[in-house]
């Protein structure tokens, strides 16, 4: 089936099989391999993208469902020669280790900050609860979000009881 979709502001028209996931379409047909496959079953969050303004796991959506959709992926995050604001905060806090969860994590943070510019720490944890990171223990990621929301002073208060 022929579909048209807009990814990171660019319009694509591709022929896809009906059973192909959006994740595989992005990676194989559009060459956008920044979005990763960690499980293919909607469980790990490595393939998180923004789909018509909401974060979704790209492995849980069929490419044909994306006909006419507007999609944001990690490749569209940094618009200049350097890092985006989110990426800069992640860099400053050493929030990426192996890097495999990072693209999806960035997408989840992006949507969080768009919806709630001043999230609570609980809301930050909720926003990334679908994104597994096996390397960092998450604290350095939350610290980056605190930086992004102008609350660096609260870095010692990552308490959740």
């Amino acid at each position: 089936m022929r579909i048209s979709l807009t990814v990171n502001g660019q319009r694509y028209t591709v022929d896809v099989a009906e059973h192909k996931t959006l994740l595989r379409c992005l990676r194989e047909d559009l060459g956008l391999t920044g979005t990763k496959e960690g499980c293919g079953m909607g469980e790990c969050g490595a393939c998180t993208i923004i789909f018509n303004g909401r974060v979704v796991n790209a492995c849980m959506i069929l490419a044909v469902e994306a006909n006419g959709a507007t999609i944001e992926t990690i490749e569209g995050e940094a618009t200049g020669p350097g890092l985006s604001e989110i990426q800069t905060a992640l860099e400053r806090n050493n929030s990426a280790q192996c890097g495999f969860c990072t693209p999806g994590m960035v997408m989840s943070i992006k949507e969080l900050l768009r919806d709630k510019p001043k999230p609570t720490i609980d809301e930050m944890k909720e926003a990334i609860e679908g994104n597994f990171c096996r390397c960092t223990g998450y604290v350095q990621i939350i610290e980056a979000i605190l930086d992004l929301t102008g609350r660096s002073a609260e870095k010692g208060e990552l308490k959740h009881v």
Partner: protein
Amino acid sequence: MKHNFDFIQNLLGRTVYIDDLPEPANLLHAAVFTSPSAHGSFAGLDLSAALALDPTVRVLTAADIPGQNQLGTAVLDEPMLAEGVWHFRGQVIALVLAGSRSLARRAAAAIKLVGAADRPAVTDPRVAFARGDLILKPRTQRWGDSAAAFALCHLVVSGRADSAGQEHVYLETQGAIALPDDSGGVRLMSGTQGPSGVQKIVARVLGLPMNLVEVETRRMGGAFGGKEDQASGWAALAALGAFATQRPVKIYLSRRDDMTSTGKRHPYSSDFRIGLDKDGKILAFEADYYQNSGAACDLSPAIIPRTLFHAAGAYHIPNVRVTGYLCRTNLVPFTAFRGFGGPQGFFVIEAALDKAAAALGLDPVELRRRNLLREGDVSHYGMPHEGVLATETFERCLARAGYPERRAAIQEYNRTNPASKRGLAVMPVCFGISFTKMMMNQGGALIHVYNDGSVGVSTGATEMGQGVSRKLALIVARALGVSQTAVRVESTRTTTVANTMPTAASTGADINGMAAQLAATEIRQRLLAFAAASLQLDPASLTLRDGQLFADPEPAAGPLLSFAALVAKAYEGRVDLSAHAFFATPGLHYDLATERGCPFAYHVYGCALLTVTVDTLRGRYQFDDAIMVHDTGVSIDPLVDLGQIEGAFAQGLGWAALEDLRFDDKGRLLADTLSTYKLPDGHFMPRLDVEMLQRPNPKAVANSKAVGEPPLMYGIAGWFAIADALRAARPGLELAYDLPMTCEKVLGLLTGDLVPAGPSGGEAGR
């Protein structure tokens, strides 16, 4: 930019992992057909339905292997493709190739076994032990006379401690791409911690000399030990496919296949006996560790000694007898996982102390304090402890936590909250650094300074997220007096640095960093000698720093030359701008017959104090905070080390509390996806307070210390903190030392539905 390029590319999503590599036009995708049960036999395979799916489908079995069908290293007991019999569920029987991944997986699912019959399976290591089914003979370490010492003890307690396995859950599953090479061999891109190990196994399976097999590892999306030996089989399958078809072959496991078919942390079941004097000083300790090794040897014989070396934890015990048994069962071959047998050993000694403290009526924190290692104490393997920081890290940790007041506040909280109880636990750590197999403590580096002044570094180290590339770039940059961004850390290739060891045992930066520093220093000396000769200056007066050459007696005169200009002149002057260096950790010796020696270059110390709140109606708990004081040496990159400390702690806490790796009695893994295997998330993590104690360590590169594994042990405090809270809720509650302490288990203990496991109790596979 401050960091090396890899880190920035990670954030941009531009790093390339195995499945992101551009696919050659004639690529074949691989899938595997695996065994359906824990043990069984078969007469053959019915491939008709699989082959009928598509003309590109090709199925390879053991009969198609040109070399040896063997993945084993220490013991040759692990066929790559099962022949006639299988020994665990998920064992690979056939390799399936097809033009697309989905086609390959559909074809694999269409294969049928012919003449298959299940055989009895053993999943419990104690049952295997009782049957005498040991992979190798047991190992015993003795120090003093524990039997005699028990007779002198004021108190002797004994018990059993069980710990479950743990799934690595590296986010990138196992994968490799193999390409046929016009030399008649193969080239591979492999997600492995040990490219030379993959090279050796591929050469053996294909019947080729090692020089016809080239292996490159750019990076891994996490590994944690799971891609040490366990990456080799998947790479060798891809290589077999490429060799047989003369087409490129890619294998990239589905998460379920990865969780079902790859090794994990070893489950252990152990018995302990501990004796103390009336002041709580430990006089004697004995333990028997029944390691569930799984169906094949893998790295188990190297993991057992690390359990034994860490049997005494961070404590001095004058009389010790500890024995480790490698029990063969019909579960997946268990393998390396961060800590490598150490965590299992630590859990047992901590369980013993927990039980002893209760019997003595002594504060468990105080009991631990009284037994900490001191300078000059000799370990139970005969190694004198030097530079001991056990007491210092312990006391600093307690001071940061405000210990006596914290305990009082918890008691007050527990007195006034009927449905919620708090508990705490302290966890001191002493962890030996070096591969316990002595020959593995070697590494090489090759540095090229290109004639524009940029620098490329190759070593045996592989990058899996632990930041070894950042450390290597810093070490080389400092040695050459250039900025970190002028240094590129190359992918790890068998043709560049050969005969390397896997990046493991926390030693990646220690060994490869030292080799890189030696190679960089060699080039620096050549450049300075050349500059001195051409400028007619004393070489001792010249220094390289900040990308410039200076003549030090007259610093005000400014730089003489830029590094790039010096390199360009040296190139014209026919100076060798490349250097290879080799490093073997000095001072190591060990006598296997007497189990005595000096197996470690040094030890890493530290202490954590963890507080938890348990909801005693629902069994749920939340870790409140963790205070850690960790001995990092002079940190080469403090942000990297902090990330390692926090990440390792999270993994240890997951193992101790949350991650429930359970097999049924038929050897089937019950949690084989990430929806059933619960991993730590942001909510699970407590507030962290980490102090890096930076005392210079003369035994490692740049006075640093290895950091990868030791902080994982802090997570064990999670188990004991919950136990502390449970005892506040149910005074006198008897707990089985059975890790992990899941919410389900907590609720069972609170309601009385879960009784302590007897000698024959416990769940299968533990």
